[in-house]
């Protein structure tokens, strides 16, 4: 009885973990089945494995190739993450190490922009892009994704930079180092793990984004999530292909998320929870 009482929470946790992971495991298994084995009832757990789903998805035997969309997503996510870091890092410095007056107000201004729904600005952005000839241009998404992630990055980095000892910075400044040098040579190396976690979280949000990409891109600048929307309506037997596509497109996020696991809460709660 006592043993059961001691073991029960662990067993329950394992059970819950498996239940939550089951859809992903099933998606992975299905992606390696042939289309006819993927669409059976009852499900074929032990069917022969094949790479046909992946071949279909990558358009090896004809059909739309996902590569342009994957490359667009990579460009949009990496470029916006880089831009976010370049803007957020000095801002976080001015909000933590040498804080401006009323720095908490500024911090909360950044946070409040995150609470403004995307749909509130979507139409003017669309009209502006149309008039400026920026529709279907990946760099417009870069700018928008930067604005989407900047508040999160400022909040996260502010809390990471606050942990950098002031004495180290003062020593460097006494040696005559100017601000950009201090930031790059002294602050950045100390705060590197926090900066990396911030970058991973910004990458995830940009990679996942659908609404802006759906409205503002077309053929040329289509991103991976927009490519996935092509699977919304059923096209006969296509489960293995859908699973392969969903898995491949989720892989970068799964990798980044697991890498940033410990800092994930802090990023998602905008720095409120450590």
């Amino acid at each position, binding site marked *: 009885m006592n043993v059961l009482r001691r073991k029960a*929470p*662990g067993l*329950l*946790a*394992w059970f*819950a*973990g498996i239940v*939550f992971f089951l*859809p992903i495991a*099933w*998606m992975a298994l*299905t992606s390696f089945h042939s289309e006819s084995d993927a669409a059976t009832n009852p499900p074929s757990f032990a069917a022969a494995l094949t790479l046909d789903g992946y071949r279909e998805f990558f358009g090896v035997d004809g059909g739309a190739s996902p590569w342009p969309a994957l490359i667009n997503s990579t460009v949009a996510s990496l470029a916006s993450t880089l831009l976010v870091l370049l803007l957020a890092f000095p801002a976080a410095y*001015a*909000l933590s190490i040498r*804080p401006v*007056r009323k720095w*908490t107000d*500024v911090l909360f*201004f950044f946070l409040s*922009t995150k*609470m*403004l729904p*995307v*749909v*509130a*600005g*979507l*139409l*003017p*952005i*669309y*009209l502006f892009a149309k008039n400026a000839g920026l529709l279907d241009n990946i760099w417009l998404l870069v*700018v*928008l994704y930067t*604005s989407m992630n900047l508040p999160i990055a*400022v909040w996260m980095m502010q809390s990471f930079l606050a942990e950098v000892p002031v004495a180290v910075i003062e020593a460097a400044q006494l040696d005559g180092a100017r601000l950009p040098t201090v930031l790059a040579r002294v602050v950045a190396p100390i705060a590197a793990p926090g900066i990396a976690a911030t970058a991973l979280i910004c990458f*995830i949000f940009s*990679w*996942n984004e*659908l*609404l802006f990409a*759906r*409205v503002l891109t077309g053929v040329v600048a289509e991103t991976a*999530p927009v490519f*996935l929307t092509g*699977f*919304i309506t*059923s096209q006969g037997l296509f*489960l293995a292909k859908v699973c392969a596509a*969903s898995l491949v497109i989720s892989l970068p*996020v*799964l990798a980044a*998320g697991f890498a940033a696991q410990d800092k994930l*809460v802090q990023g*998602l*709660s*905008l*720095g*409120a929870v*450590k």
Partner: protein
Amino acid sequence: MTATTTAPRAATPVRTTEDRPHARLRAWATRAPLLPALVFMITVTQLPFVATLVISFFDWNSLYPDARSFAGLANYGEVLTDPDLRRSVWTTVLLTVAVVLASLVLGLLLALLLDRRFRGRGLVRTLLIAPFLVVPVAAALLWKHVLYNPEYGLFNGLLHYVGGPQPDWISETPLLAVEASLVWQWTPFMMLILLAGLQSRDHQQIEAARVDGASDWQIFRHLTLPHLRRYLELGALLGSIYIVQNFDAVFTITSGGLGTANLPYTVYQTFYQAHENGLASAAGVLVVIGSIIIATFALRVVSSLFREEAGRS
């Protein structure tokens, strides 16, 4: 009275700038690193919203650009009286409340389990986080085609083994179908926040209570739950902010059909497919007003946690 109180205040900054130009220069030097980010944010997020506000007062269909005219509050009247739009307001509320509550309760249970030591805890945590790390559109496709499909989906496949019914999940319970997929994705998020809350508890206090003979339930009810209150609030509010804006799941699983169109989807459809710019803007402004109400509470919770953290360090 007003003159005497305002006069010295107005005089102070003038004097400081004359007496101490260096101080003013230094203040700008301190502000300089902040400015690029601040200017960028104001330009990209605040200006479009002002434009939305302006457009919301116009009768403007982009298919008939010459017929644009000032309409006053007519768009708001139409949004609030149009049955489709009113239903989408209601759907948004239902969707948000159901998903936030369900994932908060599940997340709390999982966090309580994960707070204990057991073999393979790290691995279980990783398994539980995984749903949150599937691209939202991919997760929605997974639920729509691979789990819900009435003929060969996993749910009906598993029901088949036990001789259960074979429901058509999406057409029979469309809103619930969307909600279930979102609960699956958001429970890990709630769990992570609540787990962080559990791990910041005062363990000495809990030990002391246990020595004094308090039961597990008493400790949970009188020590853990009050401590978790703010983390629960934070989870609920952040969850609301993200889920009120949900577009991906509604767009993918039901394409806004079967009464699942929420406000973001409706706004998208009103201008992207119906080209009613003025109407879409008015609906957008209403979404913002709703968000501001939630956000006011959210900001208060975040700032109280923030001050607590600052006080502790």
